[in-house]
């Protein structure tokens, strides 16, 4: 195939740029200090954790496929403050930040990356399959779009049991081209399931830009085919994420069914650790870094007087300590025992596995 011209690459990237909330001022948003501090602390934890994970991958402490969330942190942090502890979460394989922000100990996530038995999936899942029932995290899933019907099913169970809980179901922009997405949106809307579908549109399905996969590039409009309330959201602005998820959750809790949210976001790193990301320009990446979600929160906190330099320094120090502790914990933890291969496959304890 012919090499793409640089100008074309830039053009494709640009169409994914959002200017939904150009440089909003702090006074636009009315959230308390506590919320801002949660956002800042959790997003910074996810950021520093993954920066460390990237280094450790380079040192082969972490193996397999590893997809980093750096740049997208607001997509989880904003939703976390908009939902309750009883709501349910599910996502694809870019799944380190979700449990970290929901409250899974960094130790358990790092140990999972190391493949240690102390990991949140006992070393059986690795980077792509983080699970933590304690925080209602239904996991990271490895088949693009496979988690979408699962998310609707989790919501189906909440509706069936008559709770007020919702399920928030994340997917990448690549997943919306799967049949599972369309089948699920149709049924979720028909049955008014309490589910919030979130597209983390970072512009690229691996190396293929959104524009190259369909004529429909405003991904939120896909919901309109099923009469589903749908909207684009600036995924770099944590407040916007919170507000959109809160609206969707309210609708779901009132029995009005699902919402499709398109979070326009960006990953600074490649699709996975092996991706040099040649399909986009340095300028494009830089442009997004100018809108960094953590820097934005910090700026608005300073404006609002919700944190001073001493606070930010202190958080940086604490986060660093948590990450370092998680690495040490992971290093010192044992691998699963080989005999563990026969555990957790079936609930039935005496299942007769074939051994020769």
């Amino acid at each position: 195939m012919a090499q793409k011209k640089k100008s074309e690459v830039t053009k494709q990237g640009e169409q994914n740029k959002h200017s939904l909330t150009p440089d909003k001022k702090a006074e636009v948003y009315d959230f308390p200090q506590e919320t801002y501090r949660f956002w800042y602390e959790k997003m910074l934890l996810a950021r520093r954790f993954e920066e460390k994970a990237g280094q450790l991958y380079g040192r082969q402490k972490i193996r397999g496929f590893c997809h980093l969330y750096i740049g997208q942190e607001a997509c989880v942090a904003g939703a976390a403050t908009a939902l309750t502890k009883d709501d349910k979460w599910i996502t694809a394989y870019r799944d380190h930040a979700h449990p970290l922000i929901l409250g899974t100990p960094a130790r358990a996530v790092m140990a999972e990356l190391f493949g240690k038995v102390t990991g949140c999936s006992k070393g059986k899942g690795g980077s792509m399959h983080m699970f933590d029932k304690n925080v209602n995290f239904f996991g990271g899933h490895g088949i693009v779009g496979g988690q979408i019907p699962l998310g609707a099913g989790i919501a189906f169970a909440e509706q069936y049991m008559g709770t007020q809980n919702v399920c928030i179901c994340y997917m990448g922009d690549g997943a919306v081209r799967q049949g599972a997405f369309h089948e699920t949106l149709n049924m979720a809307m028909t049955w008014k399931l309490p589910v919030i579908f979130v597209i983390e549109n970072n512009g690229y399905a691996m190396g293929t830009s959104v524009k190259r996969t369909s004529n429909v590039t405003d991904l939120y409009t896909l919901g309109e085919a099923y009469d589903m309330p749908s909207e684009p959201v600036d995924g770099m602005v944590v407040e916007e994420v919170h507000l959109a998820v809160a609206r969707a959750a309210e609708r779901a809790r009132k029995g009005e069914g699902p919402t499709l949210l398109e979070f326009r976001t960006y990953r600074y790193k490649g699709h996975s650790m092996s991706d040099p990301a040649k399909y986009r320009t340095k300028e494009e990446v830089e442009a997004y870094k100018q809108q960094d979600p953590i820097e934005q929160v910090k700026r608005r906190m300073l404006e609002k007087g919700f944190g001073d330099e001493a606070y930010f320094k202190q958080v940086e120090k604490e986060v660093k300590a948590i990450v370092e502790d998680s690495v040490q914990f992971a290093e010192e933890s044992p691998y699963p025992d080989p005999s563990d291969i026969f555990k957790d496959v079936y609930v039935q304890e005496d299942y007769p596995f074939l051994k020769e």
Partner: protein
Amino acid sequence: MRLIQFREALREAMCEEMRRDERVFLMGEEVAEYNGAYKVSEGMLAEFGPKRVIDTPISELGFAGIGVGAAMNGLRPIIEFMTFNFSLVAIDQVINSAAKMMQMSGGQYPVPIVFRGPTGNAGQLAAQHSQNFESWYANCPGLKVVVPSNPYDAKGLLKSAIRDDDPVIFMESELMYGDKGEVPEEEYLIPIGKAKVVREGNAATLISFGKMMKVALAAADEMAKEGIEVEVIDLRTVRPIDYDTVIQSVKKTNRAVVVEEAWPLGAISSELTYHIQRFAFDYLDAPVRRVNSMDVPLGYAPTLVEATLPNVKRTIEALNAVMYR
């Protein structure tokens, strides 16, 4: 004892379990208002209402996954495939979600779900509606695969499948739904993973499951007319397989034939043959034989059907071969 149809036995199993456990529900195409494509779920909408007997659009991938998600979150779904031929568009959710979830999550998320529906040929339905995927599903750890052959077993096994905490593939047959058999009024369960010796004999062991049991039993009847008593085993479950019952029988008869509707390569018959040669080698007086469908898609014309599927004639030939008759 009363005689009821296979479809009634399945319906009784589902209704009894739904009365017993509020978390059990039935979902699939035409299961509710149409009363079931093959009338298995007839009357269930009237008893349980639309909350628990749920019609879906034709979206097997989607509703299979919705079932798995619901099971992860505390419910016990029964997902009906109108036939298992259509399960192929849903197989990602069966293999990558249902079968893997417990293991990937380190035991945090079991998936207590039943996927059920008819398998195999059902008359002259041609290539896309006449397939057997028992060995495909049986190959995958994390699943259990049940293939009953008669109304009594169907009811007892389906009740066990619904109560099972692991995902169960439950395979029936359009051609068996009208079969009548003795089914007691009182409740009973049949454990998953236990084969049954349905006819005792010493001349050879004939192993089958599902609707091919009819072929196996008819062949055994024919042999009996010549004074040859064949031992017939109904596997009932093809994951896990009750190898002990098979090996015990082969050690007694020293000869074995497997009858299976699926294609031969990588089939349950291949698996049984491996196991017999590995664990009863010194007891065998002849190579194990098998009778599978021919290694081709099933054609429409009656002559093609006859030439493709396992039948009594081929089974008798195989039995005679292992007995050197």
